[in-house]
C-alpha cells in the first residue's frame, strides 16, 4: 500500500492538531493555550480544504483564526488572567474528570471501530464551487438555506447588541 501525498499531508496536519489541542488544554500559560488553539483552528481549516470545502476553510480562517483568536488574546491581556492559571482544581475532581474523559474517549473510539463505516467508496475530490454555496445559502428552493441564514443573521445582530450592552461601562 503506497502512501499518497494526501495521506502524508493529512497525517502531518492531524498530528499537529491532536498535539496542539492537547497542549491547549494542558499548558499552564493561557497565552500558549490560545496559540495552540490557533494552530488547531488552522489545522481545521486545512481539513476543510482537503475535503474540498474551500469556502468553509476560508471562513474558518478569517472568522476563527483571524477574528476570534484575536479577541481571545485581547481579553487575555485585558483581564490579566495569566497570573492565576496555576491554581489547580482539587485532586479528587481532577481524577474523576480524567477517568471520565479517558473512559469516554476509548469508548468512543471503540464505537467508531466497531461501527463498521462502509465508506471506502471515496467520492471524487471535487472542489465545492463557492458560487454554488452562495446560491444555496440565499436560495429559497428545496435545498435553499435562506431561512436559517436569516435566523443566524438576527442572532448575530442580537449578540452584537448584547455584547455591547454588557461590556459597556455603566
Amino acid at each position, binding site marked *: 500500500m503506497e502512501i499518497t501525498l494526501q495521506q502524508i499531508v493529512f497525517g502531518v496536519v492531524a498530528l499537529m492538531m491532536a498535539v496542539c489541542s492537547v497542549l491547549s488544554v494542558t499548558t499552564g500559560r493561557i497565552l500558549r493555550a490560545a496559540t495552540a488553539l490557533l494552530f488547531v483552528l488552522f489545522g481545521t481549516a486545512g481539513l476543510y480544504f482537503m475535503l474540498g470545502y474551500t469556502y468553509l476553510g476560508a471562513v474558518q480562517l478569517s472568522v476563527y483564526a483571524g477574528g476570534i483568536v484575536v479577541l481571545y488574546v485581547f481579553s487575555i491581556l485585558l483581564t490579566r488572567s495569566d497570573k492565576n492559571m496555576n491554581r489547580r*482544581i482539587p485532586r479528587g*475532581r481532577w481524577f*474523576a*474528570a480524567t477517568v*471520565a*474523559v479517558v*473512559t*469516554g474517549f476509548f*469508548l468512543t473510539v471503540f*464505537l467508531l471501530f466497531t461501527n463498521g463505516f462502509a465508506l471506502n467508496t471515496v467520492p471524487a475530490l471535487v472542489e465545492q464551487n463557492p458560487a454554488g454555496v452562495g446560491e444555496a445559502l440565499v436560495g429559497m428552493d428545496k435545498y435553499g438555506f435562506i431561512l436559517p441564514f436569516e435566523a443566524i443573521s438576527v442572532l448575530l445582530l442580537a449578540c452584537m447588541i448584547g455584547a455591547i450592552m454588557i461590556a459597556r461601562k455603566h
Partner: protein
Amino acid sequence: MEYTILILLLPVLSFLVLALAGMKMSHRVAGLIGTLSLCAVTVVSYLTAYAYFAMPRQADGTFAQLMPYNFEWLPFTDALHIDMGILLDPISVMMLVVISTVSFMVHIYSFGYMKGERGFQRYYAFLSLFTFSMLGLVVATNIFQMYVFWELVGVSSYLLIGFYYTKPEAIAASKKAFIVTRFADLGFLIGILIYGYYMGTFTFDPAQEDLMQGALMLPWALGLMFVGGAGKSAMFPLHIWLPDAMEGPTPVSALIHAATMVVAGVYQVARLFPLYIAYAPETLHIVAYVGAFTAFYAASVACVQSDIKRVLAFSTISQIGFMMVALGVCTGMPSHEGGLGYMASMFHLFTHAMFKALLFLGAGCIIHAVHSNEMSAMGGLRKYMPVTHITFLIACLAISGIPPFSGFFSKDEILTACFAFSPVMGWVMTVIAGMTAFYMFRLYYGIFWGTENKALHAAHTPHESPLTMTFPLMVLAAVTCVAGFIPFGHFVTGDGLSYDIHLDSTVALTSCVVAVVAIALATFIYVRDRQPVADALARRFPRLHEAAYRRFYMDEAWLFVTKRIIFRMVSTPLAWFDRHVVDGFMNFLAWATNASAEEVQPMQSGRIQAYTVWFLCGIIVLTLLLML
C-alpha cells in the same frame, strides 16, 4: 306496684336538684330536700315490702317475682341487651327496706354531724346519688343493670370518701377505694361477658338449654363475678381499701362502708344463688373459704387497732366474711336444709346493717365529742354520753351474739349452717365469733371505761350529741333489740318456701358460752384503768402485735404492687419506650431524611464543571448500558 318507680326517681331527683342548684341553697334547705325525699323513699319501700309480702304466695309456695318496669336501655344483639327495670323478689324487697332505713337514719344524723361543714349541699347530693345507685343495684332485673349501678355505687363511694378533698389522706383513700374495686370489677365484667355469651341473656334466669350448653363455663363466669363481689365486699386480699375508706365522714362510713355498699357482693352472690347451687357448687364453696379466711384475718387485725373506726371497719370485713361463709356453705340438699345458710346470710345482712350502722353512728358521736379517732384520746366517756353509751352497748352485745339481741339469732343460724357443712368450718366460725365479742368489748371498754383523758377534757368537755344525732341511734338500737324476732324464714329462704326458724340448742349454747367467755376476757383485760395484761401480751409477742397492727402488711404489699410494679416497672419503661423507641424511630426517619439531603446537597454545588463531569459519566454509563 307501679309506685316502686318512686324509689328510684326520688333520690335521683333530689340528687339533680342538689347538684345543680345546691350551691344557691342554704344548708337547711338542702338537707331538708335530701332528707325528705329519703323519708318518702323509706315510706314507699315499707309500703312495697308490706304489699309484697302480703301478697298471696304462688301455687308452689314461693313469692312471685314481680317486674313492674323493664325497658330496653342499650341493645347489643337481639338476645343481649341491657335492660333497666325493677325486680321485686324477697331479697330485693328486704334490701330496699335495709337501704332506705339506714340511709334515712344517716340523712337525719348528718344534719347534726355535718352541721356547718363546707360543702354540706354537696354532701347531701352525693348521699342521694349513692342511695339511688344502691337501690338501683338491688332492684336490678339483670346482671348488666347490676353492673351499671355497681359502678355508680363505686363512684359515689369514691366521691363520698373523698368528701374532704383537701385532706391528702382522703384523696389517697378515695383513689385507692375506686381503683381496687375497679380492678375487682374487671373480673365482674369479664364474668358478665362470659355469662352473656354462653347464656345468651343477661337476665338471672337463662333458658334451660343454654344452661345445659354453657354449664361448663358457668363456674368460671360466676367465679369471675364473685371477684367483683369480693372487691366491693372487701374480701381478702381486696379488702385493703375499706379501712382507708374511713377517711370519709363517719355517717358515710355507716351508710356505705358498713351497712349497704359493702354487702353488695353478698347480695350479688345471693342473687345468683340458684345458678351457684345448681351449676357451680364448688365455686360456692370457694366463696365460703374466702369468706372464712377473711373473717378470721379481719377479726385478728381488729383486736389490736387503736383507731375506733378502723376497728369497726375490720369488724365489718369480718362480719361480711360471715355472710359469705353462710352463702358458701349451702348445698343442693332438698328442703331448707341445704339453703339454710342462704337464709342465715340474708338475715345476718339485715341485722348487721342495723347494728353496724348503729356502731358507726355511735362512733361518729364519740368522734364528734372528742375530735379524735384514737382510743387513747377516749376513755370514761360513759358519764358524759349516756345515750351513745347505752346504744353502743346494745350494738356490741348484738354483734357479739348475746341473746336476745338480733345478732344472736342471725349468727346462730350461720353457725348452724356451718356445722351442717362441716364441723371444722363450724368450729372455726365459732372461734371467730368469739374473737368478735372480744374485740368489740375491747373497743367498748376502751371508749367508755378506763381513764379519762384529762388533758383533752380540760380544753373541751365531751357532751352528748344533739337530738338529730341521738335519735337515729335510738331508732337503730330499738330495731337491733327486736329484729331478731322477725320470722325471717317466712320471707327469705333458699328455696323460696316458708318455714319456721328454730334454734339449734347445742349451737346456740356453744356460741353463747364462747361469746360470754370472750366478753369476760375482754372485761378482765381492758375494763380497768391500766391494762397490764394487754401490755404484757404486746411485749411478749412484739412481732405479732406489730404485724397485726400493721394489718399484716397488706397495705405495704398493695403499695408495692402499685408503685413499684405498675408505676416503675410497667408505665415508666413504657413511656420511655414510647418517647425514645417508637417516637425515636419516627424522629430518626425525619433525621435520616434530613441527613441524606445534607449528603446530596453538596452535589448541587452550582459548579457547572462538576455537573458536566456527572453528565459525562451519565452518558458513559448509558452508552455502556445500551451496548450490553
